[in-house]
């Protein structure tokens, strides 16, 4: 409530205005976001060109059974002589596709339900909240398994839809809470005062301010979807007809690859899943930092050269630890 809240003097540092969503302010990516983008980019490229650059048909069997990595098969072969690398490259597309589609569908549901519940309040809010609470409480994997049972043999898109049914509730809750808070802010009241319609307020006034959360929800739901799809495939549910990393793990586990030590079969898909998850996680962290400048400059400072004023030299000024506000 003080004038010092006015842009800039507050103790935590300079320029604390959160970076508002604006087309003009896409800063150059650096650090975490650069790493995340590059990593994700690699996999996106693989997803696109994978089937074309794969050295072998992933389903083609051969006589070279359970070979460790060699010149002919860079990641070795499976129990039926299939090339692991080809499976990896082709499987990338399905895995990513499921993840992205499920992420988009789930996030859209979350936005629709969460923001509506938050803004309308009253009965609508109670009803929609009850529904999201139910979906939140239902154990996700068993539910997916049950639903997937009805889709046995269906394609990856159906799997994606099934996964999104279980993945939207958390985002909806978060968005509802955020909407409840934004709804009370002065600029929403000002919009009502002007005579803006409810639809315009929700879509044009509230949503742009929740962009960060929506993007974060999208990224995290995508990770959740990829992991769930892999789990489904690993359990033998989901679409075994198309190659995905989860499918690879299923066949590997079926053939007891772990016991027989065929690490080249189960380690690569596992690592790839982890890397995609990491990439999305890094992007999420980067977006978090962009939206909350306080996280950006909290690093402690060591050994600064002082100006020549006869004051303490660099060795004298003790390292001020971060978070030193008593």
């Amino acid at each position, binding site marked *: 409530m003080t*004038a010092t*809240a006015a842009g800039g003097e507050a103790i935590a540092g300079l320029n604390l205005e959160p970076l*508002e969503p*604006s087309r003009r302010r896409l800063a150059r990516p650096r650090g975490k976001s650069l790493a995340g983008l590059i990593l994700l980019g690699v996999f996106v490229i693989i997803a696109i060109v994978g089937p074309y650059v794969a050295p072998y048909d992933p389903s083609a069997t051969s006589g070279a059974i359970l070979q460790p990595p060699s010149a002919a098969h860079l990641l070795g072969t499976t129990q039926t002589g299939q090339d692991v690398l080809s499976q990896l490259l082709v499987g990338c597309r399905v895995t990513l596709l499921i993840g992205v589609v499920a992420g988009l569908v789930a996030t859209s549901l979350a936005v629709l339900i969460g923001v509506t519940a938050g803004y309308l309040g009253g009965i609508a809010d109670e009803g929609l909240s009850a529904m999201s609470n139910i979906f939140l409480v239902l154990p996700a994997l068993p539910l997916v398994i049950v639903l997937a049972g009805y889709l046995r043999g269906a394609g990856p898109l159906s799997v994606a839809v099934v996964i999104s049914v279980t993945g939207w509730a958390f985002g909806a809750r978060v968005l509802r809470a955020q909407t409840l808070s934004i709804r009370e802010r*002065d600029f929403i009241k*000002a919009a009502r005062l*002007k005579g803006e319609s409810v639809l315009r307020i929700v879509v044009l*006034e509230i949503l742009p301010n929740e962009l960060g959360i929506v993007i974060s929800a999208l990224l995290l739901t995508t990770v959740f979807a990829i992991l769930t799809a892999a789990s489904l495939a690993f359990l033998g549910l989901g679409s075994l007809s198309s190659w995905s990393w989860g499918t690879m793990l299923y066949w590997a586990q079926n053939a007891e690859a772990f016991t027989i030590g065929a690490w080249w079969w189960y380690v690569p898909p596992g690592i790839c899943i982890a890397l995609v998850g990491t990439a999305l996680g890094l992007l999420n962290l980067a977006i978090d930092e962009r939206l909350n400048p306080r996280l950006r400059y909290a690093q402690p400072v060591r050994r600064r050269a002082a100006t020549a004023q006869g004051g303490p030299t660099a060795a004298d000024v003790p390292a001020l630890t971060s978070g030193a506000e008593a």
Partner: protein
Amino acid sequence: MLREVPALEAVGLVKNYRQRRGSPGSRSILAVDDVTLQLESGRTLALVGESGSGKSTIARLLCHLERPTAGSILLDGHAMPARIRRAQRRQVQLVFQDPFASLNPAHTIGYHVGRSLLIHGHCQRRAELPAAVAGILDQVNLSPGKDFLGKLPHELSGGQRQRAAIAAALAVGPTVLLADEPVSMLDVSIRAEILTLLRRLTTEQDLALLYITHDIASARYFADSIVVLYKGRIVERGPAADVVDTPSHPYTKLLVAAAPRGGAGHPEPLPQRRGLAVAAGGARCPFANRCPHAVDLCTRERPPEVPVGDGRFAACWRQADNP
């Protein structure tokens, strides 16, 4: 220009906030208790009170952000219906206290002002919109207006943001402007120009201005008449200079005594915070438990507003005895 009917008149406004069922000890909070006031075109009324006095609630009631529990609001003599329509929103606009919260960070200044124009039909053709918006921005001294069209709120200083908020409110074309502590969150050196701007706009556009503040000194300086609010009730009203120079109600006297003197000699000691014990609820003067002049009557019955001079009224039993 003196009109027959006040631009905005509130009669017996009451606002009761009931706590949600299920919470322990459901009480209701009486934020506004029988408030009657008039806003005249071209003049400024100051509403002075501390936090909890209900002044912000009154502002929200007057611009129909919330509905009163009882009482009526008349615009130009006509009673307002319970559910207000968009066209009726035009007449009363509100300038919020926090310039950093009253503008949507995702939209440009041009958008904020432009929406006001578009919604209320002040600009029919899209092509004319930028010029119209720039014109209004020039009026609030955000010059040159066209330079501010594309700016986002965080690119402006506090004072500029408040001007932009005023511009957006003006663009609607109201007859009444409510300003809820418009300068309390701004730096001291730029407050005067915002207040001067509001006063200028009031006279130029014949607006009725309600200036809500906790700073009684600026109320005296800036407003024509003043209303002092305590716990949702009006305790004193009258011409601003008279009320502040010679306060009648003990609460007004307390406010004046507590105000900073600016180094002009020693501030006088505050009157003792000691009144009579009162039972919870029941009719009584709201100030009785803090008033050094309280008598038994003050704890039993609610004082009416009695005249205490030229156009001045105070809600005090002691004044009723000694006019």
